[in-house]
């Protein structure tokens, strides 16, 4: 039983990171019908930006305040990168066939990934232990402080985002744009600003995810974005792409699958089993578990 609970805790921690990243995919998809393959690399970039801010700007000060400032500055920096990315790589392709934008995103992914390599070098960079290594043993289940922080902060951010999209006027504009951009434009919604906003939110959440990766695992490499991007993208699809609660659910589920399959079934076959399970889910529920939030006329 304690192993089960331990795996549950493991799964939820990694799952909440997937979910944070998946939100970036799903929000962009919801409005633009675009799989932003560069998002994973944005996450990787944010870890490097965060580390640089720590060493260069903060002068390696390790305090709670410092950590908060790192998060904020990184989020702002990545939001700017997100907007630039949208301007350069996606805006010119809004009217183009969908897959052209996908290939543009793949190009952007290469640019960012290799950009990180050119700026910070190909070797692994190592985060300092900014969060004290405290852990609690709850009857055989070991939970560390950083895990708790990741879980709580992710949940808070996700709930906040959900409320923002569902309850506020701007949120309504986002939802309207995701259902029908042209109609939204006619209703006086500035779709360009909405898209910029989407990229700001998605990139900042990705930045938080990237910093979590840095703080939790500590070793960051220029090409680590690929796998987080892939998993988060899969999570968004599983939940029903375009659907914000779906992305959270998908992320959590994927984290749990990962934990339980690697933990119980077989670590050798974890990828295979995970993806077979996901394919089965999609066969049974062709638009994801919660269904997609994308209107299509028949």
């Amino acid at each position, binding site marked *: 039983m304690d*192993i089960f609970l331990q795996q549950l805790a493991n799964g939820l*921690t*990694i799952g909440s990171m997937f979910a944070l990243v998946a939100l970036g995919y799903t929000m962009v998809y919801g409005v633009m019908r675009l799989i932003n393959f560069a998002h994973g690399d944005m996450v990787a970039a944010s870890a490097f930006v965060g580390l640089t801010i720590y060493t260069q700007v903060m002068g390696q000060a390790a305090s709670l305040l410092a950590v908060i400032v790192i998060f904020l500055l990184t989020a702002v920096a990545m939001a700017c990168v997100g907007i630039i990315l949208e301007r350069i790589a996606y805006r010119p392709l809004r009217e183009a066939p969908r897959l052209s934008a996908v290939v543009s995103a793949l190009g952007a992914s290469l640019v960012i990934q290799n950009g990180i390599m050119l700026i910070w070098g190909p070797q*692994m960079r190592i985060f300092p232990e900014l969060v004290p290594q405290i852990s609690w043993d709850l009857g055989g289940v070991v939970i560390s402080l950083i895990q708790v922080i990741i879980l709580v902060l992710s949940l808070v951010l996700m709930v906040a985002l959900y409320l923002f999209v569902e309850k506020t006027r701007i949120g309504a504009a986002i939802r309207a744009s995701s259902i029908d951009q042209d109609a939204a434009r006619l209703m006086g919604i500035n779709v360009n600003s909405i898209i910029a906003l989407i990229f700001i939110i998605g990139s900042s959440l990705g930045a938080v995810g990237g910093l979590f990766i840095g703080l939790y695992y*500590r070793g960051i490499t220029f090409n680590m974005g690929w796998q987080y991007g892939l998993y988060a993208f899969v999570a968004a699809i599983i939940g029903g792409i375009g659907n914000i609660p779906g992305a959270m659910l998908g992320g959590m589920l994927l984290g749990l699958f990962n934990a339980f399959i*690697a933990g119980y079934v077989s670590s050798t076959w*974890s*990828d295979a089993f995970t993806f077979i399970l996901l394919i089965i889910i999609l066969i049974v529920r062709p638009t994801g578990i919660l269904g997609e939030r994308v209107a299509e006329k028949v």
Partner: protein
Amino acid sequence: MKFGKMMLALAATTLLAVPAFAADTLKVGVQAPITGSYANEGQGIQNSVELLAEQINAKGGVMGRKIEVIPCDDQGTAMAAAICAKDLVNQGVSMVIGSYTSTCAEAAQKTYFKAGVLQTSDGTADSLTEHGYWTFLRNSFPNSAEAKFAANYMVNVKKYKRIVVISDFSSYATGLADATITAIKKAGGNVVSYGKIKANSQNFTPLLTNIKSKNPDAIFFAGYYTDGGQLRAQQVALDIKADFIGGDANANPDFAKLAGSAAEGAYVINVPTPEMLLRHCQAIPGRLQGQIRNLAAIDLDNHERRRDARYYLRHGADQELRYQEGR
């Protein structure tokens, strides 16, 4: 570490470089994964060789000839490696250093053999030398040798009763892990579990949680330091009391940085420094024909006073080496 290996490689190949044609420069190819997932190692190889070449040239070169380095990016894939091999041969190199992965070394071997170009590789796959190409020289020991040492150490020296083996999916790590398991069993040891991690996937706690339930007294990790450091950190975070023994690819200062405070008490199997290897090589009759059949591993535990792996990694493990003769 890498730099050291390069020095050895260059030295080894220059030893054999017969001045067959009187060109002005001695062309040395570097086949390495300069981009892709092994970009770090690849660029390291390229930079080391270029630096070495500069140093040697500054001293007047080799036998009066300057060294010219020609790099080629094999991207860590067999396909690009095969193209690289042909390219380098066309450019008239007389030796090639690098190809970080066994796969790339193997894909390129035949081309170099046909052209009579010497090749060294970090590849550890046993199969690399099975073709018997005289042009191929190892600068790493084959997996089976390290495995034998590691198994002996764990079973007979440390008397572990329940050993867990972990590897990633790379050919190096699986090769080493498979060989180690075989060797442990041969030595009468008990492998309770064999798990795999995905390199760079960072999240190893699910596997470790599973391992925890098996109550091991040792974890042998056959992968790279980038994963090893994190594996060790997460092992300690999960409160798994087993000893951690890393394969030679963990011998990197970053292992300790990554593991942080958890690095304390971890063991890493290491190869001797290049100078020692060279000394050893020169003693081999027949002068490097086939492969360098040499290996050694360091028993870090010999240093009773300082068990901290960080110490050895920082200071280089150049004292009290215990050699173990290869086949």
